[in-house]
């Protein structure tokens, strides 16, 4: 079935696509906030957690600093994976249902 642009954005498939795009974004953003502000608030209110030692010289604070960076990076990769595996494919199939004005 071919659709006009305004029919397309009223279609349930398109609405679902937009909703899932922002759901994924805001869930990942929430994780990012918990990750980063958890670290900052731990420094502010629970310093004792971070000064506890791991092994002979390192402490949890040093590990946490590196972990916040690694987790942020990982969240970015999750988004890329979702984008490549789901989002792009659904965009392609939606585009194919779109009526091309220049073709007629």
């Amino acid at each position, binding site marked *: 079935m071919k659709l006009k*642009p305004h029919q397309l954005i009223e279609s349930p498939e398109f609405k679902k696509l937009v909703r899932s795009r922002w759901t994924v974004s805001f869930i990942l953003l929430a994780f990012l906030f918990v990750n*980063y502000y958890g670290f900052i608030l731990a420094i502010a209110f629970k310093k004792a957690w971070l000064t506890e030692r791991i092994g002979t010289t390192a402490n949890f604070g040093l590990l946490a*600093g590196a972990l916040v960076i690694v987790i942020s990076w990982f969240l970015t990769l999750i988004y890329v994976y979702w984008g490549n595996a789901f989002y792009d494919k659904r965009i392609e199939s939606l585009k194919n249902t779109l009526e091309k004005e220049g073709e007629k």
Partner: protein
Amino acid sequence: MESTLGQPNFISVAFFLVFVLLTLGITYWAARKTKTSSEFYAAGRSITGFQNGLALSGDYMSAASFLGISGMVALKGYDGIIYAVGWLVGWPALMFLIAEPLRNLGKYTFADVLAFRLGQKPIRISASIGGILVTLTYSIAQIVGSGKLINLMFGISYESAVVLVGGVMLLYVLFGGMIATTWVQIVKAALLLFGVTLLALLALAKFGFSVSDLYGAVETTYGRSALEPGGLVSNPLDAISLGLALMFGLLGLPHILMRFYTVPDAKEARKSVAYATTFIGYFYIIIPIVGFAAAVLIGKDKIAAVDKGGNMAAALLAELLGGTPFLGFIAAVAFATILAVVAGLTLAAASTISHDLHFNVFREGKATEEEQVRVARRATVAFGIFGILLGILFKDQNVAFMVGLAFAIAASGNFPALFLSILWRNFSTAGGVASILSGSLSASLLIILSPTVWVEVFGFSSPIFPYKNPAIFSMTLSFLAAFVFSKWFPEKKAQNAYESEKVRVYLGIGAE
């Protein structure tokens, strides 16, 4: 060991000349390809995701990141790490919220996104005010920092250092436009990542390649406290506010946002952020090793004696570990770092002046290709000279607040409007203008009234605004203004155009 820092030596100058000649070669090559405005502003949209990822990291990892954070870790220990973490977390947010819509909606500047369905003239003028405030404050901080660094490293005077940086930067942007700027950033990012890796490896070799032994040495020399959080997060509200400015400031930096127009589509834009986050994350994870090693191997006193901000920690460490040749290499890398960032900022400012103000506002979209490129080149010269003059004028000022100001304005003036124009159907021109102006003005005003300027620069005994970072207040105000003014002055045309905007945002149909 006596340092040769501050005396021009043959090897430093040789590295420096090789770098400048190499990048000018790139500019010569790029100049022959730069004829249309799309080539000048957006490198003809021919950059791949990987290349753009490197260039984005080149744009973002400024001298403040490389020399500043390693110096902060060297002098203040753990608190430097908190900063490094804060500088990274904006990248995932950029990916989740605006990277793809930005690429699909825009042409050359972030104002294109706002102007897609809102009133051209008022939106472009206010977006230009926000954009130019950010690029100008950020450039002055970079130029003043660079003058002092080149002054310390090569021993030439502050003024000639500023003119040198400004002059070479102008050549890149003027003749090569975005193509040359991109390649200068790619070369710089690769050099920086290589240099820091080598520095960290040579430093770790002194501790038997054991990070644990390095921490042990820090503890023996400076005590346990160097490895633990100190006073940086003593005020949680200030820390949260700083975090917001760092995170969402990135989403409003014009020179970063315009890099998304150099790639062909949204998929490549997504890839660019993934690569950039990888490079930048790696950099911020290893830079503390350089700082801690400098503290142990050179000593805080010696580092602070050369520069009280600790900015020479990495350079001194390089000299200790690899002698004058390595110092020369690191000095050239630091120089490249400054040049690339300033070139990116200048290009962003020139695009705002020529594309948003001249082309879309004054000529109402009626100007030939030649005229657009000519105006862009003139804007580059004007902005470059203005930047050099302000850099000389601000010589003895504390410029740390300018970086804070740039991020606060970007987070409160540019980001809310950009974000709402993508997501909110009822966003109107009045709401956009109110959001940009209230965000950037309140951020600037609060910084002036804060301890950083009111006490440290003006010398009053107590600040009027008690926090150092205004973002939490100015961002709220900006969103509030957007909401109130959009409800107050609704715009039927903008609501109707939201449909065609959606087709373009999500499907990329119609994107150039």
